[in-house]
């Protein structure tokens, strides 16, 4: 028995995540890399509920719950305090959903990135406002059903390129990751922990109820997202793009879409459109990997 990740859990079972929750895997793996000398702040998001109600918590690190827009600014404040108190080794992390990152939290994120605040900012991306019942966010991909983009008006806008937005701030480190590749996420976090400055980690975290997928398919979907080129997994270290999970031949997007009820309504030409969009975006990124 040779585990690829440390055995110690910094998260207890008994938490309130749905069956098969991608965000649960994301936190569990991240904690193993970050260790006990870590503090979190969450905005309103699924993890606000997952951690459990007062007087319980499933985490073994300190957590400050905060208001929706404020994640990056709150983390910056915690970090400043820890520096002022001479405890600058503790890792300070904002941990937000896609809504709290792409939309309402974008201003604070941009401010912290521009100031190069010495914090981790994690976005676990389930591609909609899941905690409030599956409403569309700026992270919802083209074609998806949500409660506010019903089938007759499915989301026509593209998923916001949050990684490009963060990259435009020239932060020292950012990466994408998938819960299907926990060792990749682990390695990136262990490396990034030693980097001073703003670090952005964008994790694709499938959501069975929101994606209308089977709970047992969460890891498979997180893998297919990468293998189809829909969610390429890479890092940008000091401006250098490196693809860390390579996809020499990409699977067709249909392999991924057909496992999710939120895409069930798509017609053949719409799937073809999605394939084209993914191909274009992937080609764009490929140039950066080679450069």
């Amino acid at each position, binding site marked *: 028995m040779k585990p690829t990740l440390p055995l110690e859990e910094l998260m207890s079972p008994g938490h309130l995540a749905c069956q098969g929750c991608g965000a649960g895997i994301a936190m569990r793996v991240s904690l193993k890399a970050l260790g*006990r*000398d*870590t*503090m979190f*702040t969450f905005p309103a998001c699924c993890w*606000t*509920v997952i*951690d*459990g*109600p*007062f*007087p*319980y*918590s499933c*985490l*073994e*690190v*300190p*957590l*400050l*719950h*905060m*208001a929706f*827009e*404020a994640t*990056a*600014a*709150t*983390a*910056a*404040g*915690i*970090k*400043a*305090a*820890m*520096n*002022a*108190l001479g405890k600058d080794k*503790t890792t300070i992390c904002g941990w937000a959903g896609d809504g709290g990152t792409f939309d309402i939290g974008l*201003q*604070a994120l*941009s*401010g912290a990135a*521009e*100031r190069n*605040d010495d914090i981790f900012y994690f976005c676990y991306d389930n591609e909609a406002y899941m905690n409030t019942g599956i409403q569309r966010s700026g992270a919802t991909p083209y074609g998806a059903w949500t409660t506010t983009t019903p089938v007759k008006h499915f989301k026509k806008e593209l998923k916001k390129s949050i990684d490009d937005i963060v990259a435009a701030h020239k932060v020292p480190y950012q990466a994408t990751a998938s819960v299907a590749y926990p060792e990749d996420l682990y390695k990136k976090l262990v490396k990034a922990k030693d980097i001073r400055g703003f670090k952005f980690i964008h994790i694709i975290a499938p959501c069975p109820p929101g994606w209308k997928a089977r709970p047992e398919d969460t890891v498979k979907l997180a893998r297919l997202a990468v293998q189809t080129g829909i969610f390429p997994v890479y890092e940008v270290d000091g401006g250098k793009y490196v693809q860390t999970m390579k996809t020499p031949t990409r699977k067709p997007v249909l392999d991924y879409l057909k496992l999710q009820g939120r895409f069930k309504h798509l017609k053949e030409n719409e799937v073809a459109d999605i394939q084209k969009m993914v191909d274009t975006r992937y080609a764009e990124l490929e140039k950066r990997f080679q450069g």
Partner: protein
Amino acid sequence: MKKVMMGNHAISHGATLARVQVIAAYPITPQTQVVELLSEIVADGKLKAEYIKVESEHSAMAACIGASSAGARAFTATSSQGLALMHELLHWAAGARLPIVMADINRAMGPPWNIWTDQNDSLSQRDTGWMQFYCQSNQEVLDSVIMAYKVTEKVLMPAMIVLDAFSLSHTYEIVDLPDQAVVDKYLPPFDFKYKLNVNDPHTYGGLTTPEWYMEFRVKMQEAMEQALVEIKKEAVEFEKAFGRRYDPVEPYMVDDADIVLVTSGTAASTARFAVDQMRKKGKKVGNLRMRLLRPFPFADVREHLKNAKKVIIVDRNISYGYHGIWAQEVKSALYGHSKVPVFNFIAGLGGRDIFPETFVDIVNKVKKLKKPDQELYWVEVKQ
């Protein structure tokens, strides 16, 4: 050491002497000099603090909440639109029981844009759980920042120090800068028992059902009631250490007054000047300056207004559809304790000047009325 300085700089010096550890602030007229001087003080190494140049006031309060939660003494300053933008997080800071101190420069709310003074911005926040101290001099401003931390860190509720835009923020007065050593003796370092701590990890602010939420709110009210006790205690302690006394209310010639004016901010000093003028003419007038809005000093207000035959509350603010806010507060404190007629005059909105003559006119008008025949009276408005 005595120095001539503007109100904004009195705030900066107060925060410096209080040894704040994290400052997170966003510029807004007329607060900018507060943070500009603090930037210089930090850059010169005269204050060991982390200064986060946040990208909005909402983020300023978010950063203060983060910093205070981690056990650092946190400070910010703002005004008007900025304070309004922080509103959500003012509730949060109080509910999280964080002893943050903030300066608010009272500036009128827009639209239209108006950078001059009135009190609607801070008074709109009175239900958020923040203590509010209304200052009339730059000395009081500086002293209040220091006193505020002493009280907030005891009861774990936040506080705002409020001062008039331009009339105080940009007016130069003589301020006695206390010695750092004397301040250090008065105000010990912040030692937060409930700070974020990796050696004793807890989650703060988790979902709380109706079963226990209300009891946490009871605790906040109890903390504010205790704050009133502490504020009165600190008035004595501060006087012992620094020789200056600040009570929740400041009575001036009220004991034998037939008519008592109730005022706050710089208007209160103008009112005292007018009281002197009127006393010379034989009119028995007095002034009660309200320094403390929250926690509300019920007993002091009832005590000092008990002999008045008429009370005139002059508000530099208004709650639309009702009347002035200090008038609401004082009237409700008097209810059941006094049947004195209370007149509410609204003056000086958007920075319109309040002159000694303004108070003379108000008193003359009230002398002709047995009791108010209007819910509110507008002062010197063009017809």
